[in-house]
Each structure stands twice: as C-alpha cells, then as structure tokens.
C-alpha cells in the first residue's frame, strides 16, 4: 500500500529475478528447529504471537499473499500459513513443500461488537440450523473439493440487495474470500450470503487490512468481521465472537529441495502468460480499471479541496491581523508536520469514527487538508514574490484591492506558483496510494489483490508503477503547458 511496502516488494522480486535461492540443508520438523532461520508470518496474527515466544527465530512480518514470493526469493527461508490456504493455492505444484503442520489448531468465528448480542444470536441460530440440516457439511466439503463449481454457484446466488444493512469487514485470502470476475467469492462470502438471505440482511463488504479489523469494528466503521479470525482470549475481550464455524491449523513450508525447475520459457511467452494470469483470467483487469477510476476520483477531488483550502488559508495567513495570521500559521505548521498517512488514520479512526462516511470521503478530507496546508504556503510565497510597487501602482491608478489582485498580482504570482505546485500535485497523486489503509480499493490496492491471488509479484507491481508514472507525466505535462502559456506573456 504505502511506498515503503512497494519498495520492499520490488526488492523481494529483484532478488527473485537474480535467483538467489537458499535451499536449507534439512527441513525442520518442529517449531524449535526454526531457530536460526528467517520465517515469514502474517503480522499481528496468532502465529506471529506464538513464534515471538521462541528465541532465535528471525521473524519477517508480511502479507500472507506475499509469502510464496518471499520464500522463493530467499528473503525468508520458511513461512507459516493456514493449511487450507496452502492446499487451495496448490503451492506443492509450485516448488514448495510443507515441513510440518498442525500448529495452532483453532477455531474461526465471526466477530461482532460487544453490544450487538441480537445479531450474534441470529448468526448462531443460523449456524445451528445449517449443521442440523446437513447443509453445513455440504458447504464445507464442496468448497474444499469442488472449488470451481462452488464459485459458479456463488455467482449465481449473489448477496441479497434488500434487507437490513450490515457492513462486513473482510480481508482477501484465498480460498476464504477472493475476487473473481470482478466480484467477491469464497467460502466465507458464500456462508455469509446464506446467512443474510435467511435472516433478511443486506451485506456491504469492505476490504480492510487485517490488523485494522478490530479497531474498525470498535470505531463503528464495520459491523461484522468476516475474516476467518481465530478465537483467542485476548480478542474475545475486545469483540463478541459467534459460535465457531471452521477449524484450522497452521503449517510451515519452505522450498522443496527435490523440485526441479522446469526449463525457463522465453521472455515473450512468460510475459504473455503473466498478462493472461494477472489481467485476463477472472477479468482481473476490471479490478485495475476500477482501482484506477478510484485513484483518479480521489486525486481530483482532493486536489480541488486542497486548492480551495489553500487559498483560504493563504488569505487568512496574509491578513494584517496578528491573531488570524498567527493561528493560521500554527495550524499550517501542525498539519504539515504530520505524515499524510497518520492524518488519514486520525481522520478515519478518531475524528470521523462515529460518523458513517465512506473511506473515499475521509481520504478526500485528509488529502485536502494536508495538501491545502502545503498549497497555502506555495500560494503565499507566490504572493510575497509580487513586488509591493505593483500593488501601489495598481492602487494609484484607482483599481480596487480585488482588481489589483485579479488583474496584476495573481497573474504574476501564478507564474512563480505553477512550477512548485506541479511537484505537489504529482506527490498528491502518488500519495493517494496509501488509502488501502482505510479500506478504499484504489489502484495500488487493486494491484495488491491481484498479487495475493496470482502469487506473482512482478507483473502487478510493475504494471501499477507504470500507470502511476503515466498519471504523473500527464498531470505534470498539463501544468507544464500552463507554465509555458504563462511564460509566453512573461
């Protein structure tokens, strides 16, 4: 999501390309034997907590979807994920091998807010009915053994569009929840849709980072956590768990030493295969184009808000009244001193916690605020660069202050503003890539979803990068044209 993460992933895949593959001499058979090795775990997960208690294990906290790439590139020697995920992703066929399994056997449940007892009871009664009728066994068995037909079935029976509204926080992990043909699918989605149909709910699914699920629930951003979340005593203190509906355990896997790499296909064939897998298959390009639209919408709205706010702040800052100017200065300094990501989090989890606003709206407010503060300084520097004599000459001719501003000061300031402004606009567009943190599905998040599904890091990341470069060049080019037009009249 954030820039640092993209860099981390790019370095991962660069090392994958250079082919540094550390095949361990012997596969470990239990947790103790992981000492002295680098092990990838999902950050904040129960595996993370468990392995932290063992000394000598070098933990690497990443997304579950990125684990195969990390192991393949040698960044991590081993990784821990749910057995069911390992099987569903058919990692055996891709050169990996389970070392041992059966770790952290546990039960998953749906989580509600502590005071939402009513809906929790409804869910529990639904589960009991399902188990009694045998529907539960069919559901579980079919998803494990006939995944593709279940996907088709889920598509045929989409989520109800009428009924009581309920916002569901999800994370995308195959095969529980994933996107296929531009729509949500997976065993948990199927289960929850069945629940909604039987109890008259209309679910609205919202993708949230795993560590942000419980805070989002308690901040009223979502009403339910549907994310194969394990029941632990710590979590049970913060949320209300339903009855368990699934059993799971973790396995540890690494590279299979006996795996023989198939002859490498030519670069053209590989590119074509990547394109098919990452874009064509399951209509994944729709994810990207949807993400791009969100990124564009976000950038444009934020830019407009930032300009309006920037002008306002600049005006207040330049008032001769010491109070207005001083307060504005402090405000601008404070806002500019906070990283935009932190502003976004504060807006989402603190300021607008109790108000039901979409992630996009909150993001627009956050970027508008941060860049408004930045722009106000850019505008102010521009205005200060206009010589006092120009104001005086205009005034002496009989022009009003507003007329001098419009006809003389502003056109002159604009020429100094545009080049600096350009850099800020490009930075704004690129910085919108952090909105994945507040469950907005933008271009970067779309790339992430594809990556965690296809387990191919290179193609989605490079493609997303290229799209960002094009966006930056286009917006920069537009402002350059404006700059040239302004300079033509010096």
């Amino acid at each position, binding site marked *: 999501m954030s820039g640092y993460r993209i860099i981390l992933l790019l370095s991962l895949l660069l090392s994958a390309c250079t082919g540094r593959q550390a095949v361990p001499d012997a596969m470990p058979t239990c947790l103790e034997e992981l000492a002295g090795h680098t092990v990838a775990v999902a950050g904040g997960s129960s595996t993370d907590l468990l392995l932290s208690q063992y000394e000598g294990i070098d933990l690497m906290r990443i997304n579950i979807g990125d684990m195969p790439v990390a192991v393949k590139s040698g960044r991590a020697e081993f990784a821990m994920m749910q057995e069911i995920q390992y099987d569903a992703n058919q990692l055996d066929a891709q050169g990996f091998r389970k070392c041992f399994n059966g770790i952290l056997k546990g039960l998953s449940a749906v989580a509600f807010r502590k005071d939402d007892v009513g809906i929790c009871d409804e869910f529990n009664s639904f589960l009991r009915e399902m188990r009694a009728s045998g529907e539960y066994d069919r559901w579980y068995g079919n998803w494990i053994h006939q995944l593709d037909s279940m996907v088709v079935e889920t598509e045929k029976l989409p989520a109800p569009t009428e009924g009581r509204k309920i916002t569901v926080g999800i994370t995308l992990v195959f095969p529980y929840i994933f996107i296929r043909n531009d729509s949500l699918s997976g065993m948990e989605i199927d289960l929850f849709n069945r629940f909604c149909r039987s109890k008259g709910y209309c679910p609205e699914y919202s993708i949230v980072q795993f560590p942000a699920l419980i805070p989002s629930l308690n901040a009223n951003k979502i009403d339910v956590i549907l994310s194969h979340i394990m029941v632990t005593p710590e979590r049970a203190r913060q949320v209300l768990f339903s009855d368990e509906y699934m059993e799971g355990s973790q396995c540890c896997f690494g590279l299979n030493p006996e795996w023989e790499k198939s002859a490498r296909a030519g670069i053209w064939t590989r590119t074509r295969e990547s394109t098919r897998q990452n874009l064509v298959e399951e209509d994944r390009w729709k994810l990207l184009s949807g993400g791009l639209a969100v990124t564009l919408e976000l950038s444009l709205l934020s830019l407009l808000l930032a300009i309006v706010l920037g002008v306002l702040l600049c005006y207040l800052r330049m008032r001769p009244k010491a109070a207005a100017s001083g307060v504005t200065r402090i405000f601008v300094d404070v806002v500019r001193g906070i990283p935009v990501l932190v502003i976004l989090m504060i807006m989402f989890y603190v300021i607008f916690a109790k108000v039901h606003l979409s992630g996009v709206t909150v993001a627009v407010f956050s970027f508008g605020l941060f860049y408004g503060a930045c722009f106000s300084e850019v505008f102010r520097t521009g205005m200060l660069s206009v010589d006092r004599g120009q104001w*005086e000459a205009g005034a002496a001719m009989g022009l009003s202050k507003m007329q001098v501003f419009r006809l003389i000061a502003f056109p*002159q300031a604009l020429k100094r503003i545009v080049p600096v402004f350009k850099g800020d606009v490009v930075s704004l567009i690129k910085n919108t890539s952090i909105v994945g943190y507040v469950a907005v599905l933008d271009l970067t998040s779309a790339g992430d979803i594809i990556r965690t599904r296809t387990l191919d890091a290179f193609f989605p990341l490079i493609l997303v990068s290229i799209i960002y470069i094009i966006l930056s060049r286009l917006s920069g080019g537009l402002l350059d044209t404006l700059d040239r037009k302004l300079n033509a009249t*010096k």
Partner: protein
Amino acid sequence: MISVKHLSKVYRNGDKELTVLRDVNCEIGKGEVIGIIGPSGTGKSTFLRCLNRLEEPSGGRIEIDGVDILDRKADVNLLRRKMGMVFQNFNLFHHLTILDNITLCPRTLLGKSREEAEARAMELLQLVGLYDKAESLPAELSGGQKQRAAIARCLAMDPEIILFDEPTSALDPTMVSEVLVVIRRLAREGMTMAIVSHEMQFVRSVSTRIFFMNEGVIYEEGTPEQIFEHPQRPATVAFINRIRTLEFKLADKHFDLYGMFGQVGVFCNKYGLGNEMLTKVQHVMEEMLFEILPFCGPVTLTLDYSEKDFTLRLQFVQEGCAESVLEQIPNDNIPLKLVRGMCSSLRETEAGKILVEM
C-alpha cells in the same frame, strides 16, 4: 484645487515613533507645476504619497475641489483615477505588454472599449516617443523608456494632476534627459503637476512654484527665482548652496586634536578637497586653538563647504568674550601672521566670532 492643512504623518513601530511630516500647509492651483525639493528624509515623497492616500496621514486635512479626501466616506479609488502617479521604480506591470499596461485601467475603470483604449494608447505612445514599443514587455525596455511608458500609462486615465515621485532617481544619467523632456512638454501643455526631484536645474526651469521641505514642514516656498537666487532662511541657503558642515564643540583646552584631525581628514576627502587644503586647515586649527583663542569659555568650531562655489569656511566661536579677541593680539604676532598667510580672509564678525575663509 488642492488644499492641505496641518497634515502630519507619524510612523509607529512598537513604542518607537518617527515623525516624517509635522505640519504641512499648502495650496496647489490648477495648471501649477510644483517642484518639491529638500534634503533626503524630510518627507517629500511621504507628502506626495499622502495626497493620493498611498500613505494614510496621521492628522490634518486634504481637500480636493472642496471635498475632504480623508473623510471615511470618500471614495479613494475614484479620487485616484483623477490623480496620476509616476514612481521612482516605474512599477510597470511586468506581465503585460506596454500597450496592455496603458489600456488596462481605462478599460477596467472607464469602461472604454479595447479599440478606443488602444487608439488613445497609441497616441500617447507617439507623444512619449515609444510608438514602436507597444508590443514590447517592460523587461525589454531601458530605464528611460520604462519611465516614459509609465507616464503614458498615467496620461491614459486623463488625470487632473500628476504626482512625480523622484521620476529620474533610478535612471542611468544618460537617460535622465529623455524623461525630463517629456515632463517639460506636459508642463508646457498646462498639466497640473507636483514633482519631487533632485534635478535642481530641471525643477528650477519647469516649476511655477517651489516647496522647500525640511524636517517635516514646508520650510520655505516661493517662485523658482526666489528660492534659488534669494533664499531667505538658513536651511534653504545651505541646501541651495549645497553646504556641507562639520562641527566640533570644545569645552576647554583639553580636547582631542588628533581625533579632530581624523574627522577633518575624512570630511575633506569626501568632498575632494585634496591634501594641500587638508594640511592648511589643520595648521589653521592648531594655531587658532592653541595660540590665538583665550579659551575663556567653550569654543565651537564649524567647517562649512559649499559644493556650489567650492569654498571652505572655518568659523570659531569663543564664548564668554566681552570684547574682541583679535584686537588684543599685536599685529606682529607670529601665529596670527601664519594663519593670515594660509587663508584668503580672516575677520572677526562680532566679539569672539572669527571667520576664516580658506
């Protein structure tokens, strides 16, 4: 046309106060050309800028055609349309061509059409000799051309009076005359003007009346002839004759002669008086202070140098003298002879006041 009464302007910065205009009173009639002269920092520009309220006066009244322009209800912008101003630094609008500089305000404020405004602008450019520069940007013009364009810009508003704030101070000496010619032409055509300038010859020849400003007031006013040929008050005389002054006050005989010599050296050097003159002055000072003056009270020594007739005078004032100092000294007194030999004249204007002309 313009009547100014008890105008004052005080700048306040924290507890510090700086009085620039103390009490300015004057009348300016239609068709007059007022030359405003005076030493630097005496409020000439501030006075001019108060007239169109670029500076807000601290007190007093300014009436234009009987209307008090300092009144809250006065429409300053309407007032300014009738008063053009030409600045020291031209202040042409950098981002507009010369033509647009001239047409901007007539089109915005007088509602003229583009064609109408441009036709008039071309006439004015013709008048100031910049017909072929209409499409140039200010940055492409020389200083003199910029100032002429600025004058054309003023004229485009058909002002009733033009205020010139040191219009040639920022110019290369070679470009001064091209601007002055234009102003002179306006004067000939009967334009009412107020000109702050250090170009004495020009001010003298173009003005109908001169205001000599000093220490925040109009210290002396009159026709050019009165002010330049027969100035009445001491500061005016000093200014017109361009007299530079250095003064020492000595309480008793124990003064620092070499410190004084140092200051006199700097003074002579500054006005190009040469080493020979400096040596002579130092000798005269030494003989007068050690041998001739009795020091029966404090002594004041003043050096006056006129840049107009290049003469240097030393004046010694011995206080506490009832009778003439020189009469008590015999004529063959050697120090006195020495002094007489070094200067062109030495006389005692009144008891204890000795004037030495070098």
